[in-house]
């Protein structure tokens, strides 16, 4: 996909996020929206996957370590063809397979159940280790929140990944700067994030999480990096794309009401129009 196609797709993913969370009357839009471009790039450009065969042997794996941003993952998987986009409105509802946090047993395309912060990265490390044991060439991607990296297990996993030189592993930190209780650097600062991963023997790349040229270049560089895992620090805007949600910690885990939903969809429709102009 070229950048314009990626932007258009990411906008569809964002619509899926707000639609799902609005229908659920609960969920986590802020961190889903900040990662929407990353999700889109991974599933539409980067990863070797097959939506018709979610358990394909030798596929690349993705673990959503920041599991609460499941609306973003689900919207991406639906748009990629793993399941119907219409099902996004069943998010978090009794009887729906779209659980509040990713559940690998019931959701096509979900490689690992997650949600308890700090745990997904360890599973991703285990997957990457398995590929190394068997000399398989699949790659493993895991997305973490910048608040999540306050969990000690993240650094246990990183120490192991660095020590074992897991160059088939890419850790992405969605650095939107906000967590539930406020700015990450006020709650318990994780900064400097890049230097921490460097110290754990990672190759580190800082990017603008909403710039597809930079996203593309970073994943290419990760693939070319041998002998060490890569950490991509993706500097993002929480709530990206929705005017009233951008950079607001309050939209971490809150659903828009009907009026807010209309405004949000209006914002995203405007982006569609701009992208259409760009295309013309």
């Amino acid at each position, binding site marked *: 996909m070229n950048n314009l196609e990626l932007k258009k797709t990411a906008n569809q993913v964002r619509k899926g996020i707000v639609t799902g969370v609005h229908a659920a009357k609960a969920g986590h839009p802020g961190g889903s929206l900040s990662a929407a471009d990353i999700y889109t790039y991974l599933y539409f450009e980067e990863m070797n996957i097959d939506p018709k065969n979610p358990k394909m042997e030798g596929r690349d794996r993705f673990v959503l370590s920041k599991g609460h941003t499941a609306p973003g993952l689900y919207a991406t998987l639906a748009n990629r063809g793993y399941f119907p986009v219409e099902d996004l409105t069943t998010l978090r509802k009794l009887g729906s397979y779209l659980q509040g946090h990713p559940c690998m*047993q019931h959701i096509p395309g979900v490689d690992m*159940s997650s949600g308890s912060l700090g745990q997904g990265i360890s599973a991703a*490390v*285990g*997957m990457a280790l*398995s590929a190394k*044991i068997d000399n398989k060439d699949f790659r493993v991607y895991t997305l973490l929140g910048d608040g999540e990296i306050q969990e000690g297990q993240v650094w*246990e996993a990183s120490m192991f990944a660095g020590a074992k030189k897991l160059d088939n592993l890419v850790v992405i930190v969605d650095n939107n700067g906000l967590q539930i209780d406020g700015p990450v650097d006020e709650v318990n600062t994780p900064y400097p994030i890049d230097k921490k991963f460097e110290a754990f023997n990672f190759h580190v790349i800082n990017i603008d999480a909403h710039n597809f040229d930079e996203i593309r270049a970073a994943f290419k560089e990760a693939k070319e990096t041998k002998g060490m895992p890569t950490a991509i620090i993706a500097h993002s805007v929480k709530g990206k794309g929705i005017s009233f949600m951008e950079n607001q910690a309050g939209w971490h885990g809150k659903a828009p009401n009907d009026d807010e939903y209309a405004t949000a969809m209006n914002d995203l429709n405007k982006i569609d129009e701009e992208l259409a102009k760009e295309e013309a």
Partner: protein
Amino acid sequence: MADKIATRESYGNALAELGAKNPNVVVLDADLAAATKTGVFKKAFPDRFFDCGIAESNMVGIAAGLATTGKIPFVSSFAMFAAGRAFEQVRNSVGYPHLNVKIGATHAGITVGEDGASHQCNEDIALMRTIPGMTVMCPSDDVEAKACVMAAAEMDGPVYMRFGRAACPIINDRPDYKFEVGKGDIVKEGKDLTIVATGICVGNALEAAEMLKADGIDAEVINICTIKPLDEDIIIKSAKKTGKVVTAEEHSVIGGLGSAVCDTLSEKYPVPVKRIGMYDQFGESGSASALLEKYRLDGKGIYAQIKEFLA
């Protein structure tokens, strides 16, 4: 009586045997390979052994990831850390997705000995059996410990295995012994009283039964290796015969075998029950034998507690 051997030794030996049979078996440890005896596997299969360092939570998560790709990971540490520190990782990364991870927890109970209470885990059975879909096994000797490991590798889904540090006698070396997950085993038939025991307490319960015999009390001894799923039938059948049940375990009476037996009997066939174990208390430093004596979990102690129950 045959030579004594600690079930952690059996664990290491069984892993090495299993490694030769099944190439998907991988073993993880957290800087305790010499103590948990996974070092035996490491020596035989260095490419399939991973030392995660002192980071049990991450080790359990790595095992979960390995299991998603078809590996059969055995993760090992002391029970305190495998079930205690990493409880939530076992619950959420292994139990919830029902992944094929086997947890080999050694140094369970007070027979850890001199290290003292910080390392004596008397709570692991309670923690592990609350996790939906988790199989919990606590073997009583070398024969059964090896059988547990082999059976765990054969079955799909998470398994918690509890092993001890202290050497214990071999009691299951009879020709008709057959291990089956979820099945209890009557190691001594009797009619006056049922003793349901697990782990190292099975051998001790047999000793207690011998002492009871001198008093004219004919006790039945049931070895429950699989605490979950519990063999309810064997316990209820025996309770119907004897009308009195004693449980014995090197674990807290809260949440362990005693609780599991009471869960079953209180609902399905209520009879008087005495739970023998650690009574809402921590252990302390001392030799394994001295501790078993002090906390009345050796043959004599179990005998004395049964006599008090019957008085």
